[in-house]
């Protein structure tokens, strides 16, 4: 199938990237993949279920603090710490989702934001665990017991991130194409009708929020050992807003789009910030341009164009 061939091609190119790119580009690319995972996790909620979270940084920051704390204070290896942090984010999200899904629309969004701000505030109070305003620093990448030392090098870590992103993408893709995914689409288009048809819509929403937070937490859990630190900025509303922009610019409801959106955001930020202090203003204008003129986002528009000639040919 064309989709599989495209996926294999992209993964092959990304896998060969360390051979050709200078180290600082590899650092940027690694961060872009981590952010891509983060944005893709949000797409499950925003693009597929129309549950707009204004506080998705909660997942990212929580995952980052979790894996950072585990790597500093326990003997857990890098993969185990990352895995535990992702699961913890998902479990936490069940509680969050249980509360937030009591309301819909803007109040849902506000509750997710409130929850992220709550975590943000906690980092300044529970300083013995979070390191207060300094955050957690000097987070090591500890090799595992199975000789997984390769994962801790710069290139090895890149492959670790790439592997997890591909696995998460495949997981999400089969989810959105499953019967469960069909129900999510129903909730997106008409929740009241979906409920009337006999679906317990709240249970579906809680499940998708939990998975979304778990994958967002996984991204954060990767960021902490990538950067070597975790601080309260990872829970701040600014990041929640930025990841929402990545999803919309890349193309909500496409999974691939948000990954592209994250990469685009990363590189645009990198390029713009080397020219001007006020790069955020230019990025804001770029965002407005997309909302007005490319509402389907980068990948949404590309995919629509790819699909049309293919449909005619058949």
């Amino acid at each position, binding site marked *: 199938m064309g989709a599989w061939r495209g996926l294999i091609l992209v993964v092959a190119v990304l896998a060969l990237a360390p051979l050709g790119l200078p180290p600082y580009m590899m650092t940027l690319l690694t961060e872009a993949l981590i952010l891509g995972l983060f944005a893709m996790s949000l797409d499950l909620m925003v693009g597929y279920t129309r549950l707009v979270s204004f506080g998705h940084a909660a997942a990212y920051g929580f995952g980052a603090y979790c894996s950072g704390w585990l790597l500093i204070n326990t003997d857990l290896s890098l993969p185990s710490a990352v895995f535990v942090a992702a699961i913890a984010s998902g479990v936490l999200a069940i509680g969050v989702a249980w509360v937030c899904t009591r309301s819909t629309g803007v109040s849902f969004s506000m509750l997710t934001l409130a929850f992220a701000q709550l975590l943000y505030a906690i980092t300044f109070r529970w300083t013995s665990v979070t390191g207060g305003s300094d955050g957690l620093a000097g987070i090591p990448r500890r090799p595992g017991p199975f000789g997984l030392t390769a994962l801790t090098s710069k290139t090895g870590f890149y492959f670790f991130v790439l592997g997890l992103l591909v696995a998460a993408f495949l997981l999400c893709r089969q989810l959105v194409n499953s*019967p469960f995914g*069909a129900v999510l689409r*129903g909730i997106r*288009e008409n929740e009241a*009708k979906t*409920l009337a*048809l006999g*679906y*317990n819509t709240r249970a579906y929403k809680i499940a998708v929020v939990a998975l979304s937070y778990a994958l967002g937490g996984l991204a954060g859990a990767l960021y902490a050992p990538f950067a070597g630190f975790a601080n309260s900025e990872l829970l701040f509303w600014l990041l929640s807003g930025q990841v929402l922009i990545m999803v919309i610019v890349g193309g909500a409801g496409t999974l691939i789009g948000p990954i592209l959106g994250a990469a685009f955001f990363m590189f645009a930020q990198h390029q713009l910030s080397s020219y001007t202090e006020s790069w955020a203003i230019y990025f804001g204008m770029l965002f407005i341009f997309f909302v007005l003129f490319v509402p389907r986002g980068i990948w949404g528009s590309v995919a629509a164009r790819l699909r049309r000639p293919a449909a005619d040919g058949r």
Partner: protein
Amino acid sequence: MALLECEGLTRRFGGLVAVSSVTMQVATGEVRAVIGPNGAGKSTLFNLINGVLPPSAGLVRFDGEQLTGLTPAQVCQRGVSRTFQLTALFPEMTVRENASLAAQARDAQRWLPFGGGAVFHRARAKADAALERLGLSHVADRPAGLLSHGDQRLLEVAMALAQEPRLLLLDEPTQGLSVEETQQAVETLKTLLAGGELAVVLVEHDMEVVFRLAHKITVLHRGAVIADGTPEEVKADPGVQAAYLGDFADAAD
């Protein structure tokens, strides 16, 4: 024994009694119309039956089991499907996807988070059968939002039917249709209901539609039942005639 039994069903909204001590039965194979002017409490009665609203008093029994206290989703799982007075569809999905999602709701594996080829296959077969019965096969691949209003009303019925219910609640299925569309819809519904395997409650404004489809009629007035019987009995009822000033006589035959 009746499939659906409502006993002393009452619902208050503040000081307003929207449904007042309604008792009625519907048996399998029977089409019962519920009629009454705007605001008589017909839609509220549906909301009480399928669990959208809790009753202030009284209860609903379905096949001997009490429905009161169940959620709409749970009521639907037991075999009660309904259509809405205001068309409610998934506008960006195709007509077939709409019906298929409706059918999937009664599948034991409706929530399967991976694969699901068999689930989709079963749902699609039921969807296609329902679309066929409503004469919508030729628009199956069109987005539901692009259908004519008349076809959208029929799709509502097809979606309910794709769930293979035992009790079908139809809330004004011909609302907003032109005269020709109504005629067509009535013909389609008549063949549909002739099968006899369904119990149907039909809320309708159009008296002609009611007299052509219903075996029994319940007349609501300000939430209360003022008449209950065959179409002939109801037409002859002096209380009904007083309440409706001979509207029914005009519509008869």
